């Protein structure tokens, strides 16, 4: 581990929100029905707002007179700290929803625990985000159950999405030295506890959705330390294009 674990942690939380918010926002205008278009945009807006809170904290801790925007728009792939799950492509709407559910089921217990963080800055951001995350999980849980237990096609699609994404969920609760350092200071929760909660919750919901958790021989890990899947580079190329093309300009 290099540098301040709180800084690293703020990047991880912020990049998760940023990358997921960015991907979700691409559905605006293209979702399956108007009501859903509006609902998903609300989730994206919450995530972009949360990204700003975490990345502002990271910028401040870095102490180089940078802004959340500098952090979001001027880092390259290897410097991003989001988990692999959130950078997986939108795919069909089933994949987008499943990705959201698998993330929310981790995000809410994390934020709930972080509200009690001994680090005041972390707990402040968690406090501001936790209600939104609770709504996200309620919504994605509901849709996963309904579509899993819907008709043949909706079940097939949700099952394929689960199959494609499940192997990225292990990373969420696999601790590394950053997590351990924060846990020692009681600034962040014990990821084993989050893992137990995650397993129990996702199993219950997926069972109700009549979906089967696939056998995965090896979970994919790496995003938290900057080793990403190929899609992230394209996502950043699009997101950062203006800042890259016109260095130093204000918008």
């Amino acid at each position, binding site marked *: 581990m290099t540098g301040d674990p709180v800084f690293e942690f703020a990047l991880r939380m912020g990049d998760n929100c940023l990358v997921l918010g960015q991907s979700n926002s691409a559905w605006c205008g293209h979702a399956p*029905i108007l009501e859903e278009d509006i609902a998903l*945009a609300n989730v994206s807006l919450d995530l972009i707002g949360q990204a700003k809170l975490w990345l502002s904290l990271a910028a401040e801790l870095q102490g180089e007179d940078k802004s959340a925007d500098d952090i979001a*728009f001027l880092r390259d792939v290897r410097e991003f700290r989001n988990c692999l799950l959130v950078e997986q492509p939108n795919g069909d709407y089933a994949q987008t929803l499943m990705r959201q559910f698998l993330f929310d089921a981790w995000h809410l217990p994390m934020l709930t625990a972080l509200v009690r963080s001994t680090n005041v800055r972390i707990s402040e951001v968690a406090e501001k985000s936790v209600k939104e995350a609770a709504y996200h999980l309620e919504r994605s849980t509901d849709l996963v159950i309904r579509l899993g237990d819907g008709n043949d096609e909706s079940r097939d699609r949700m099952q394929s999405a689960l199959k494609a994404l499940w192997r990225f969920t292990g990373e969420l609760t696999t601790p590394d030295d950053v997590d351990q350092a924060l846990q020692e200071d009681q600034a962040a929760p014990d990821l084993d506890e989050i893992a137990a909660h995650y397993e129990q919750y996702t199993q219950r919901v997926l069972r109700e959705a009549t979906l089967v958790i696939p056998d995965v021989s090896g979970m994919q890990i790496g995003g938290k330390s900057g080793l990403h899947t190929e899609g992230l580079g394209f996502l950043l190329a699009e997101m950062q294009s203006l800042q890259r093309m016109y260095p130093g*300009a204000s918008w």
Partner: protein
Amino acid sequence: MYAQEVKSTGKGLKTLEEMDPEERAFQEKIDANIKIEPKEWMPEGYRKTLIRQISQHAHSEIVGQLPEGNWITRAPTLDRKAILLAKVQDEAGHGLYLYCAAETLGISRDQMTEQLLSGKAKYSSIFNYPTLTWADIGAIGWLVDGAAIMNQVPIQRCSFGPYSRAMIRVCKEESFHQRQGYDIMMVLAKGTPEQKEMAQDALNRWWWPSLMMFGPPDAESVHSVQSMAWKIKMNTNDELRQKFVDQTVPQAEYLGLKVPDDDLKWNEEKDGYDFGEIDWGEFYEILKGNGPCNKERLGARQKAWSDGEWFREGLMAYSKKRKARKVAAE
């Protein structure tokens, strides 16, 4: 405007004396500014014209998500991204309110969607132009939303209750849309030389299409008279266009940008600007489907609708199943 070429089905204006008693009572209500509500008696022409107008307006909001939506993933800062997303989301909401208003007249949203996707229904010509740079997002907010608001504010007073109420909600929510566009333009106009050039280029490309939004000149818009008598159109196309030019030219000057019209000149006598000829040939070509982006816009909506079918069907299947389970349990 958002409903540029609504063919009214009225057969020329009748005087009150020529109307039968029902129609006369209806017209007298309108003349007295009493709102017409869905279940009340109304002439068939009024109902049909309103369905066309409101659904065109709704389609415009929905298709209007696309050109700006292009830039959500490329917005240059986190704040700009959130603001643009919120704005494009509002447009989905406004489409929804308007579809609901039209549904009170006896047409379903699916039927209206089918009319849009088959190319049978129209939407505003403006959304068939491409958004090429970030400044286009500024120009759309400033000019396109500016023009839309100018049209929508008077429709808040229109004679049909559900349309009027939808418009009140839309206008309240849209108050920030034009401002966010102008704010983008202000930053660009004060920015680097490239940014200023970007802003000027966007104004050059969006100016004339914005003027076309108000629809054909009064002399050619044959259906206006009946719609105005029914108070579902509150001002003539030329009136609103003139108002828009008079309001917008000083805003361009404030930005230090030049309106791309060599004939633009202040006319002391009419207390407004004279402006150049609009290329109506281009306008009608776009309405016919031959604009630069007609195919892409409709294609995107068709794709969203067909890709989303399993989602709509799957959720319906679940709800039916659950209802059946409940009944069985009782």
